[in-house]
């Protein structure tokens, strides 16, 4: 458990630092005339303080087991791959367009994560990409990226 607390404490310390730096750039202002970054800055300081208390506690507390139980029995590929696909989707969306990217995203999710057959993954990928395009772009008039191919 201490090890997990160290990881999460470190994460929140880093995040609070990033928020504090960026909110300082926005302008903290004073108590009588708060700037746009006022709340964020002091919220970041509070989060940082809490995270440091968590970190300090993780070193001073007695050992309460390894804490590895939270991450046992996880198929890491089923976690890493969807995140990788979504990141690739975000990077390729404006270049390749919504339909192509969505087809590949659903195809890869079904084929590699859910182990569906080629035919099923392809069919569902095409149907979902065209269906969501029709629903959002044509019906709800959401402006989805067209990509270099124009769709």
């Amino acid at each position, binding site marked *: 458990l201490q090890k*997990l607390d160290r990881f999460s404490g470190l994460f929140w310390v880093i995040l609070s630092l990033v928020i504090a730096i960026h909110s300082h750039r926005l302008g903290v202002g004073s108590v*009588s*005339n*708060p700037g746009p970054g006022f709340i964020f800055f002091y919220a970041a300081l509070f989060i940082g303080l809490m995270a440091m208390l968590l970190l300090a506690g993780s070193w001073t507390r007695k050992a309460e087991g390894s804490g590895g139980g*939270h991450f046992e029995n996880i198929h890491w590929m089923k976690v890493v791959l969807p*995140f990788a696909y979504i990141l690739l989707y975000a990077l390729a969306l404006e270049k390749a367009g919504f339909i192509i990217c969505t087809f590949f995203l659903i195809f890869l999710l079904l084929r590699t994560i859910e182990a569906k057959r080629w035919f099923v993954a392809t069919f569902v990928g095409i149907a979902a990409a065209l269906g969501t395009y029709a629903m959002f772009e044509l019906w709800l008039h959401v402006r989805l990226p067209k990509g270099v191919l124009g769709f």
Partner: protein
Amino acid sequence: MYIGNVMLLVLNLPLIPVWVRVLKIPYSYLSALIIVFCLIGAYSLNNNITDIIVLWFFGLVGFFAKKFEYEPAPFVLAFVLGPMIETALRRSLIMSDGSFSIFFQRPIAAVFLSITIVALAVPFFIKKRIGAGLASDE
């Protein structure tokens, strides 16, 4: 907003059987569609890829938060109340010329602040008392 919520209620009540039927779709297909809907929702806010990257990042944070057993309720409360707190706190500080006494001098604010302090303090004292009870038993 109120009209929108009323319209949602009017539309959704007769459609409850349809929404229930959605749950009969196998989770493997449903999860892929949920991801796509989330991505479209994030992108359509500002037509900006950065929003998808933010979604990706907080998806990652959410995964680890679940594994680290963080309670989701305070997160949701903070997301809903955060912008309201920001506006109200700034307005109050400007009104009081930077004095925090405005939160204690007004009766409604003072009552709620007292309740908050009691709610924060009570678990601490209960824990301390239980600890003292265990020590005396030994």
